[in-house]
C-alpha cells in the first residue's frame, strides 16, 4: 500500500524532472523509488491488512506478485538509458507512464473488490496503449497502439459486463462476500451468475492473450518498441494472471468445477496455437510474441487445476518467464541496434563476437523452453504436478508434447548463434546497467533452476 503511494508520487516528480531538463536523474530516482516500494511490501509480509474499506487486501499472495512485478520493472528501467532517448526527448513521460502502469498492476494483484480490479486494469492498460505507440512516425507502432486500444477497450467491456452480472446475482463487488454466497449455495449457480463469470473469463483471457482471444498480441508485441514489449510480456502478463487466479482462488473457488471444460479448452487451444504458429515465424520478436501466448496456455493450466498450490505454481512460472523474457528482449534490442534487423539471421554467429551475450540468451531460451537446471523447468514442473494430482492427464500430455515442439523454435536462435558464421566482426557495446541486468537475469535463472526451494514454499 505504501508502495502504491511511493510509486505514484515519484512518477509525478519524474514528470517535473523532465520539465526542468534533469533527465540524468530520472532513472536513478525511479529505481530508488521502486526499491523503497519493494522494501515496504517486504515489511508487510504476513500482516494481511485491508485498505480503503476492504477495497484492497495485501496478503502474502499480493506481496509476492507485487515484489515480482516491481523487480521486473527495475530490470526494464535499467535497460532504458539510451533507449528512450533515441525515440524522442520525452523520456520523463515514458518512465512516468511505466510507473503509473505499475500502480495499476499493484492494484490488480491486491484487489479485494471487483471495482478495484477494473480500476487497476484500466490504469495499467491506458498507460500501455500510449507506450505501444510512442514511435509516432513508425507505422507499425501506430498500428500496435490503435489495435491494442480498440481491442483492449472491447475486452474491458466484456469484463465490466461480467462484473455487472455477478453483481446482479450476488449484490456485491466484494470478493469475500461473493465467496460466502457461493459456498452457501453448495456448488450450484444460477445461469446469470455463470454468464457473469464466463464474461469475466473472456475479458481476462484477452488481457493474458489466451487463444482464441490472442489476435491482438503478435501485432502489438511486434509493433511496439522492444523495451515496451518486454514490459508488456513480463509485468503486464504476470499481473493479469495474478488478477485472473485471485478471482478464482478468493471468489469463485466453489463453482470452478462448472468452468472446467471452458478453462480446459482455453488452455489446450492456447498452447497449440502459440507453439504451432511460433514455428513459422521469421523474426525473433514475433516468435517471442507467440511463445508468450503459449506460456499463457501453460499458466492457464494452474488456474484450471485450482488448489492450494496453484498460486505458488503460477508465481514460480511467472518469475521464470519474466526474467527470461527480459533478458531475451535486452539482447534483441542490442542486436537490432547493431544489425537493424529482428530476424533469426541477425543472430548468426553472435557467439563468436559476443560469447557472453550469446550465453545469456542461451540460458534465457533454455529457461523459456523448460530445460532442467533452469527456472523455467521448475515453473512447468510445478504446474504439471498440480494438474496431474487433479487428474488432467490428457491436458498435461498435450502440454508436454507442445513443450517439446517449442524446443524447435527456441533452439533455432541458439543454432544461429553458435553454428553459423557472422556477417561482420562488430561487437555489441554494453553499458554498466545493461551488463548488470543480463548478469542478474542469468544468475537468477540458474539459481531458481538449481534451488527451487527458495521460492516454492512461500505461499
Amino acid at each position, binding site marked *: 500500500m505504501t508502495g502504491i503511494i511511493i510509486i505514484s508520487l515519484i512518477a*509525478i516528480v519524474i*514528470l*517535473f524532472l523532465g*520539465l526542468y531538463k534533469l533527465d540524468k536523474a530520472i532513472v536513478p530516482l525511479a529505481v530508488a523509488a521502486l526499491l523503497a516500494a519493494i522494501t515496504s511490501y517486504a515489511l508487510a509480509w504476513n500482516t494481511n491488512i485491508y485498505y480503503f474499506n476492504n477495497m484492497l487486501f495485501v496478503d502474502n499472495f499480493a506481496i509476492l506478485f507485487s515484489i515480482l512485478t516491481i523487480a521486473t520493472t527495475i530490470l526494464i528501467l535499467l535497460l532504458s538509458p539510451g533507449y528512450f532517448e533515441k525515440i524522442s526527448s520525452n523520456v520523463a513521460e515514458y518512465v512516468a507512464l511505466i510507473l503509473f502502469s505499475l500502480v495499476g498492476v499493484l492494484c490488480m494483484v491486491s484487489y479485494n473488490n471487483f471495482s478495484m480490479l477494473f480500476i487497476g486494469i484500466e490504469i495499467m492498460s491506458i498507460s500501455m496503449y500510449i507506450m505501444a505507440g510512442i514511435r509516432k512516425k513508425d507505422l507499425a507502432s501506430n498500428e500496435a497502439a490503435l489495435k491494442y486500444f480498440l481491442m483492449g477497450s472491447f475486452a474491458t467491456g466484456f469484463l465490466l459486463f461480467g462484473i455487472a452480472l455477478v453483481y446482479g446475482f450476488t449484490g456485491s463487488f466484494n470478493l469475500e462476500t461473493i465467496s460466502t454466497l457461493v459456498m452457501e449455495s453448495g456448488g450450484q449457480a444460477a445461469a446469470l451468475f455463470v454468464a457473469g463469470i464466463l464474461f469475466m473469463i473472456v475479458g481476462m483471457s484477452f488481457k493474458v492473450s489466451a487463444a482464441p482471444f490472442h489476435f491482438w498480441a503478435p501485432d502489438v508485441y511486434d509493433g511496439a518498441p522492444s523495451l515496451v514489449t518486454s514490459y508488456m510480456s513480463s509485468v503486464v502478463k504476470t499481473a493479469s494472471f495474478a488478477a485472473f487466479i485471485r478471482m478464482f482462488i478468493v471468489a469463485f473457488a466453489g463453482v470452478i468445477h462448472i468452468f472446467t471444460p471452458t478453462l480446459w479448452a482455453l488452455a489446450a487451444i492456447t498452447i497449440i496455437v502459440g507453439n504451432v504458429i511460433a514455428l513459422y515465424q521469421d523474426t525473433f520478436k514475433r516468435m517471442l510474441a507467440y511463445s508468450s501466448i503459449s506460456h499463457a496456455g501453460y499458466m492457464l493450466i494452474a488456474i484450471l487445476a485450482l488448489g492450494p498450490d496453484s498460486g505458488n505454481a503460477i508465481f514460480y512460472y511467472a518469475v521464470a518467464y519474466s526474467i527470461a523474457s527480459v533478458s531475451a528482449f535486452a539482447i534483441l534490442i542490442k542486436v537490432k541496434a547493431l544489425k537493424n534487423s529482428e530476424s533469426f539471421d541477425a543472430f548468426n554467429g553472435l557467439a563468436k563476437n559476443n560469447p557472453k551475450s550469446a550465453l545469456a540468451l542461451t540460458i534465457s531460451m533454455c529457461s523459456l523452453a523448460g530445460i532442467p537446471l533452469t527456472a523455467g523447468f521448475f515453473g512447468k514442473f510445478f504446474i504439471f504436478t498440480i494438474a496431474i494430482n487433479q487428474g488432467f492427464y490428457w491436458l498435461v500430455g498435450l502440454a508436454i508434447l507442445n513443450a517439446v515442439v517449442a524446443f524447435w523454435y527456441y533452439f533455432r536462435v541458439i543454432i544461429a548463434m553458435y553454428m553459423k558464421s557472422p556477417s561482420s566482426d562488430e561487437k555489441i557495446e554494453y553499458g554498466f546497467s545493461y551488463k548488470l541486468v543480463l548478469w542478474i537475469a542469468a544468475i537468477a535463472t540458474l539459481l531458481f533452476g538449481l534451488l527451487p526451494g527458495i521460492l516454492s514454499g512461500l505461499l
Partner: protein
Amino acid sequence: MESNFLPSDYFPIVLQLLAAIGFVGLTMLATHLVGPKRKTKDKLETFECGIEQQGDARAPISIKYFLVAILFVLFDVEVIFMYPWAVNFREMGMQGLMEMFVFIGLLLAGFVYIIKKGALDWE
C-alpha cells in the same frame, strides 16, 4: 417493493413501439407515392441550414483544439467530485478536508505541468 410483472404487462409498450414504427413507415411511404418528383441539382445537395456546403467534412483540424477541449473536460469533470464532498463535508471532518487537499494538490501539479509543457500555448 417486491412486485411481480408478467410479460403481458409490457403489451402497451409493444403497442407504442408498433405505432411509432408504423407512423414513420406510413409517412415515408405516403410521401414517396403521393409527392411530385422534380430532381434538380440544388435539391439533391446535402442540406446544411440552407448554407452552401464547402469542402469535405474530413478536413484536417489542428490538434490544438483537441488538446484544449480535452484539458477543459478534465478540469470540468474534476469539479464534479467536489459536490458530493461538499455535501458530506461535516461528517468527514478533518480527514475529508485533508483528502480534498491531496486531490487538489495533485490536480494543481498536473495544471502546472501542462502550463510548463506549453500545452495551452496557441502559437
